[in-house]
């Protein structure tokens, strides 16, 4: 078993300590998110990967029915900067509603732009789940 405070921290990071991602996307409008970015960091694709790691679990936690697909493309050629890097919101028929370009952006910037671009509702504080040691 791992250290208990460490694990509680890990779980709270998903459900409580990431305030920017405490959002609920309108389920009647959005059915899924699709992220496409490069496997490697080079050519400005690190922010997208960090966004996936830091914010996407929280969004999945508060939007359990939202389908989230991450497609990572392998590209070991440092000079090749043609790999796409975007986030798409899909409606119920699988059509693209909005697209957010993630290249050369910090993960925090991507999250801010995401919150501006998409129709969402902030989750009230009393509905947030925090784990405490009993």
């Amino acid at each position, binding site marked *: *078993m791992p250290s*208990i405070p460490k*694990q509680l921290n890990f779980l709270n990071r*998903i459900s409580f300590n990431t305030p920017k991602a405490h959002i609920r996307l309108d389920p009647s409008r959005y059915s899924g998110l699709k992220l496409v970015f490069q496997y490697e960091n080079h050519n400005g694709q690190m922010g997208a990967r960090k966004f996936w790691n830091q914010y*996407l*679990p*929280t969004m*999945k936690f508060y939007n*359990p029915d939202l389908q989230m*697909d991450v497609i990572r493309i392998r590209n070991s050629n440092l000079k090749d900067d043609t790999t796409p890097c975007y986030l798409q919101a899909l409606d119920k028929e699988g059509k693209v509603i909005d697209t957010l370009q993630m290249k050369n952006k910090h993960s925090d910037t991507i999250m801010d732009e995401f919150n501006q671009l998409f129709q969402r509702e902030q989750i009230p504080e009393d509905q947030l789940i925090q784990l405490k040691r009993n």
Partner: protein
Amino acid sequence: MMIGLIPPSRFQLFGATSRCLFHTATLLKVEESGSKLTKEQLKKREVRRAARRKVEAKKPAHTHPLYLPIPLALRYLRAVEVGYPASQQVITATTSVVADRGNPPLAGNVSLPSPLKDVLVAVFSNDDQQLSMAKKKFRCHLVGGSDTISKIKQGEILVDFDKAFATPDIAQELTSQVARILGPRQVLPMAKRGTVAPDLEPILKNSFGSIPFRQKGNSISLAVAKCDFSDRQVLENLLSVQTAFKEAVSNQKAKRPSILGRTTLTTTHGPGIVIDLV
């Protein structure tokens, strides 16, 4: 600072070598007192530890600080697994086992209401009738006789099946030829395990849709679901795992049967969350 405090005449007495020796002597002393217990003391310590493990195992799951109800645990696990390939998103249940010395490891079969994948079965026989029955009626993954065994030995056929059955006429050959390949994967047909019989039809009938599990070390671990299963499917699977584990304990041939302890639910990339299973 310390050197400054010691008067110079005294300091000269402690040469570099003598200090070094003193140091080693103290280290040795510490080592002796730390590990050198008498046999009786060691035995007592072992008994004490075993008792502690038993007490831990008997505690109810909800007293553990990492305990979560299963639906909430699944929400966390699905959140952690977001974006990984679907093939990697496997949910595993691990139950700790507290066994007396000499108890045989717990083992058994569990048939999950929503299986993760098809169970692949291999049938070995020199009897054509049995082979054709296995092939046509049950659509077994691998069917063959002596030539198949030699191919497995040479590595031409990969061991990708989960279960294997054989007729008595070929069992001896299997044991002598490929026991080293099939044995470690627990797929060597043996009469003791009930996987060798002259008529394979009833065994095959029972075995389809069930997955074998076995205690390894101090725990039993079993893949119970995938992240895209619904909560209901996961719970149904967990219930059947629970009954199978309890059955394995009641079938165990031991003076004092093993105790099932804490159960954790985890995924490939996720944390282990304590749940209430047994």
